[in-house]
């Protein structure tokens, strides 16, 4: 166990994977000499050389397209997109190619690429350094989507992603890259995909969150406890595959659900989660499902503090849910 920040844990995860398997390599903009704009790849080029820590030209479709070619040929590339907001030139490669290779070839061509990208608001990043568009990827069959909320999960989920057989979109909550630190197991620590984590157990209402919203939900649960409301906080950890069993068991117990994400509400991941609860936990619901999300506007710069869900909004929604039935 070593105490470290989330971004350090990402770095340690990459290091662990590269140390263990010469086919693992990292590519992206400024990932080498500079160590990444968030320093997630810091020091890797020194240890593994420029052939395995590749500074690429400024082209996201080039980064993901070449990563796909490498993966088809047998390497295990981890591509970094500097901000999730800049992934769209690579969208065609991710959605049309990466996600479909195995299927469209009848299983002949698995295509295992990990695409890492910092996502989310809270760093005064405005429209183009703040977005949380995980739902696009969740909606694409063939992609797995993982979002850690703790340093230990950052390393554990990343190592699972790199050793997975399928393409993984690995989204890192940059707002808490350094804001949280925690104990991280040494060595090849892996957190299995599809296993949600109950952060805080509770009986009255279930709060579902992921990434940077997990600490927000946890803070809300603490505030609610003072009011006699016992809130359960569940960190989904991977959106695809989703740990439905844990989600449903929680709502079957509490009868109430609040879904939190910083992405815009309409067609966000919360919509899917709400639909699953409506389909499968309907007769356990004592109150309507509440969503606490970003607003359906582009992400604002000066107003990001009011755009992003905070503990007060989450607690407010949970309280209303508990009072309503």
């Amino acid at each position: 166990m070593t105490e470290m920040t989330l971004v350090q844990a990402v770095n340690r995860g990459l290091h662990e994977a590269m140390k263990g398997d010469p086919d693992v390599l990292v590519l992206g903009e400024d990932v080498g000499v500079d160590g990444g704009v968030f320093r997630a790849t810091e020091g890797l080029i020194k240890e593994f050389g420029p052939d395995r820590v590749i500074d690429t030209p400024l082209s996201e479709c080039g980064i993901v397209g070449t990563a796909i070619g490498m993966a088809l040929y047998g390497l295990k590339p981890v591509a970094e997109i500097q901000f999730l907001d800049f992934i769209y030139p690579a969208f065609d490669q991710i959605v049309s190619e990466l996600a479909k290779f195995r299927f469209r070839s009848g299983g002949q061509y698995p295509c295992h690429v990990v695409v890492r990208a910092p996502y989310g608001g809270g760093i005064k990043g405005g429209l183009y350094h703040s977005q949380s568009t995980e739902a696009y990827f969740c909606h694409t069959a063939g992609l797995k989507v993982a979002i850690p909320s703790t340093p230990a999960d950052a390393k554990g989920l990343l190592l699972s992603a790199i050793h997975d057989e399928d393409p993984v979109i690995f989204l890192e909550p940059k707002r808490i890259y350094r804001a949280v630190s925690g104990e991280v197991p040494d060595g090849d620590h892996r957190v299995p995909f599809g296993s949600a984590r109950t952060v805080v157990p509770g009986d009255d209402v279930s709060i579902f969150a992921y990434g940077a919203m997990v600490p927000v939900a946890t803070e809300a649960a603490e505030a609610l406890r003072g009011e006699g409301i016992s809130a359960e906080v569940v960190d989904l950890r991977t959106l695809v595959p989703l740990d439905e069993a844990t989600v449903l068991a929680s709502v079957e117990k509490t009868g109430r659900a609040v879904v939190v994400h910083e992405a815009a509400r309409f067609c966000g991941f919360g919509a899917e989660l709400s639909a699953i609860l409506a389909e499968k936990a309907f007769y356990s619901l004592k109150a309507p499902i509440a969503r606490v999300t970003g607003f359906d506007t582009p992400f604002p710069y000066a107003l990001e503090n009011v755009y992003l869900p905070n503990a007060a909004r989450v607690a407010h929604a949970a309280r209303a849910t508990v009072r309503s039935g």
Partner: protein
Amino acid sequence: MANAVSPPSAPLDSGATPLSAEQRLSFYRTMVLSRAIDERCLSLQRQGRIGFYVPASGQEGAQIGCAAALEPDDWIFPAYREIGLALWRGIPFRTLLDQFIGNAEDIMKGRQMPNHYGFRDKNFVVASSPIGTQITQAVGAAMAIQRRKAATVTATFFGDGATSSNDFHAGMNFAGVFRTPTIFFCQNNQWAISLPRERQTRSSTLAQKAEAYGFPGVVVDGTDVDAVYRAVRSARERAVRGEGPTLIEAQVYRYGPHSTSDDPRRYRADEELQAWKRRDPILRLKELLLSSGQWTEAKDAALLDEVRAQIAQAIEAAEAVPPVAPATLFEDTFARRTPQLEEEKAAFERLVQEGVIRP
């Protein structure tokens, strides 16, 4: 006019190509087979026996010449108009037809439109429909070859339209930066559906675009199978020597429609087509073979009969294969089904059992 790269029906310059008579004959046989398949598949589509078809007639010289110049270990990243390459790589027509029909023996399991196939054991990567996406992938695979220090190359295939795509530029740029062993093989067939080559780019050739990325680009007469073979062979040797990529622009003409969903009479003149047909790649090779005494009209007629019989036989066999099994839908999205997919598969099977979904 950029299209006129050589005079109609000029004799092939055989002297400079170290090709044996036997090699040329096998080129010819494959080109004839490719053309015959094209013609038959267009009619199968009109009869509703296959859903769609992308013809390659007119491009056989470029395709076979290029395919022959590559080694079996070289990886092909094709577009969807590469039947000549597939046949040269040894993929039987029957296997392609299974894919066109989407029957139970289709290796792609009935998932892709006709002509979107791939065969891992032949290093023939599976094609997709978006234009140009295979180009960056070929460069990435070439980077992997560099890492593996293998004496092989990747070759990627695309048309004149793809030179406007993001991936063309990204791929060319990455290849130049990393000096990858990649052959960019552009079959400039003059038309991107309805858009003529002149409207695709102001560049006087497509090949010259390589210069901006720091590596050579060459124009070759794609109706001259020998010339194509030579150009690709030399690009391959450069790549294996570690000297980096080459862009080859093979100038050809698409005789048929872009696909069976298209009617080229809406946008181009028949005179243009007839002019290109006068220097048809198959015709030119046949004339060379006849004039050198390696071939006779009688043998030619027999070859055509044989090829047509072979095609008919394959059609009969492929059409007798049952349709792809519905439950295969739930294979290969992931290595293992997620719980959600397991649930959907079970629900699907119930609906099939209850007759709500009728495969």
